[in-house]
């Protein structure tokens, strides 16, 4: 009887972890599928079809394909091509307007100072209205990017939690969830709530500055607001990255000790099957590490392909404004040059914010993808 009881307990001890692992694997697959479903259509275009079709444990090949140099270069080319068209159109429009302003000024009489000032005001107002009105759509595009990043991070959180817990990193899962939830709250309140209002404020200040012909110099004020905001946001991101790195390392160390103690206890106190349990746990840990690496890399790739077109578009638009500013200087259109320089600086501020958000998310995902399972 005693022998039978011992045999049953040993069998249960051997079967249950495997059964539990299979269940959790299914849960991880479901969470991964949910994450993939949340990937927007414009990001899907950059990824191979197999990336969305393969199950989590078999998606290594599709990940290799998606992350290959050829695919990344192709995506970069495509993103640049798409944005380059818009940027060139914008540059052509700016150049056309500047040439018109220059022709307009050359046609204007140069006898009366008052008349020529009134004409300069008229042409500056026209250029400012044209440029600022055409940029409104870009701000909405940026708002969409923030929402995409937020929805992707929200969709990836359950998968992260499941895979952390599968590897026995329960504390790391809690820490990661906490920090990423804080990041998402930050993204929602800071970015969606303040990036665009601050941009609007800076743009309206520069608009008024440009149209008053430098009578009231509001540019330094706009520059101060932008610099302070970018610095504060970078500091918060740095703080979050630091807390995430520190807490994850501590939590993982704690989880590893807890699971190794359990494995040691199983190996030492359960005769015969104890060693097998210990080995099984090691195999489960290795497979969880593999799944984490696959899911983490997949998420980084998805984020990268969401980030790339926006980054290229903002970068090229900024270049178009800066180049337009240089052309304005060439044509002696000083007021117009001020407007273009200000728009270029606003797009530089956008670049800083987009890049800092992306770096924060990639840092968190890299920690996740490279984390060793507690039982490993």
């Amino acid at each position, binding site marked *: 009887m005693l022998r039978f009881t011992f045999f049953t307990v040993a069998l249960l001890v051997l079967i249950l972890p495997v059964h539990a692992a299979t269940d959790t694997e299914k849960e991880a697959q479901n969470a991964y599928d949910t994450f993939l479903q949340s990937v927007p259509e414009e990001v899907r275009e950059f990824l191979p079809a197999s990336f969305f079709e393969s199950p989590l444990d078999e998606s290594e090949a599709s990940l290799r394909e998606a992350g290959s140099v050829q695919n990344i270069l192709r995506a970069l080319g495509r993103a640049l091509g798409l944005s380059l068209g818009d940027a060139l159109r914008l540059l052509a429009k700016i150049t*056309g307007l500047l040439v*018109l302003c220059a022709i307009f000024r050359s046609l*204007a*009489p140069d006898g009366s100072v008052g*008349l020529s000032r009134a004409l300069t005001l008229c042409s500056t107002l026209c250029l400012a209205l044209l440029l600022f009105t055409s940029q409104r759509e870009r701000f909405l595009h940026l708002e969409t990017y923030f929402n995409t990043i937020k929805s992707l991070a929200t969709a990836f959180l359950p998968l992260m939690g499941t895979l952390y817990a599968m590897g026995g990193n329960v504390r790391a899962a809690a820490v990661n969830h906490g920090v990423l939830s804080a990041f998402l709250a930050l993204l929602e309140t800071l970015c969606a709530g303040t990036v*665009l209002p601050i941009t*609007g404020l800076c743009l309206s200040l520069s608009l008024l500055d440009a149209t008053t012909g430098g009578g009231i110099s509001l540019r330094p004020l706009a520059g101060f607001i932008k610099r302070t905001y970018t610095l504060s946001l970078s500091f918060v991101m740095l703080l979050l990255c630091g807390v995430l790195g520190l807490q994850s390392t501590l939590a993982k160390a704690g989880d590893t000790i807890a699971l190794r103690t359990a494995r040691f206890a199983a190996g030492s106190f359960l005769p015969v099957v104890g060693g097998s349990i210990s080995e099984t746990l090691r195999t489960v840990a290795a497979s969880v590490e593999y799944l984490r690496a696959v899911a983490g890399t997949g998420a980084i790739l998805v984020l990268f392909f969401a980030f790339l077109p926006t980054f290229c578009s903002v970068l090229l638009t900024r270049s178009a404004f800066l180049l337009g500013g240089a052309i304005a200087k060439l044509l002696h259109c000083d007021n117009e040059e001020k407007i273009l320089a200000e728009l270029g600086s606003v797009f530089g501020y956008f670049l800083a914010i987009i890049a800092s958000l992306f770096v924060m998310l990639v840092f968190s995902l890299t920690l996740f993808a490279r984390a060793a399972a507690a039982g490993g």
Partner: protein
Amino acid sequence: MRLLQIAGVCLLSSMVLLLLRELRPSFAPVLRLGTAVIVLGAGLVLLSPIITQINALLEVGDAGELGSVLLRALGIALLAELAASFCEDMGEQTIARCISTFGKWEILVLCLPLVGKVLELAKELLQY
């Protein structure tokens, strides 16, 4: 070679003006005004294809309305400048200055809707 014709008209009227100043000084301003109107009219005829081209370009850049404001402002400035210089030639500095000021005001009045639009845009940007 429209320049030849215009140069001919200008030279001829200058010579006639020299004679008129001696014989009938009161007719000189009339001739001066007539010559200025002819030269300016010829200039506008010359510029009309350029203005049409500029208008077409502004239409392409969705700035047709703004383009018309710009051209009207340019027209006002040219006219005010011409009238002011004519008055200055007749020794009426005060009237010349008045015309310049009036032209400046008219351009500012023309710009008022644009200022309104700029303020509206700034308000819209602040509402993001």
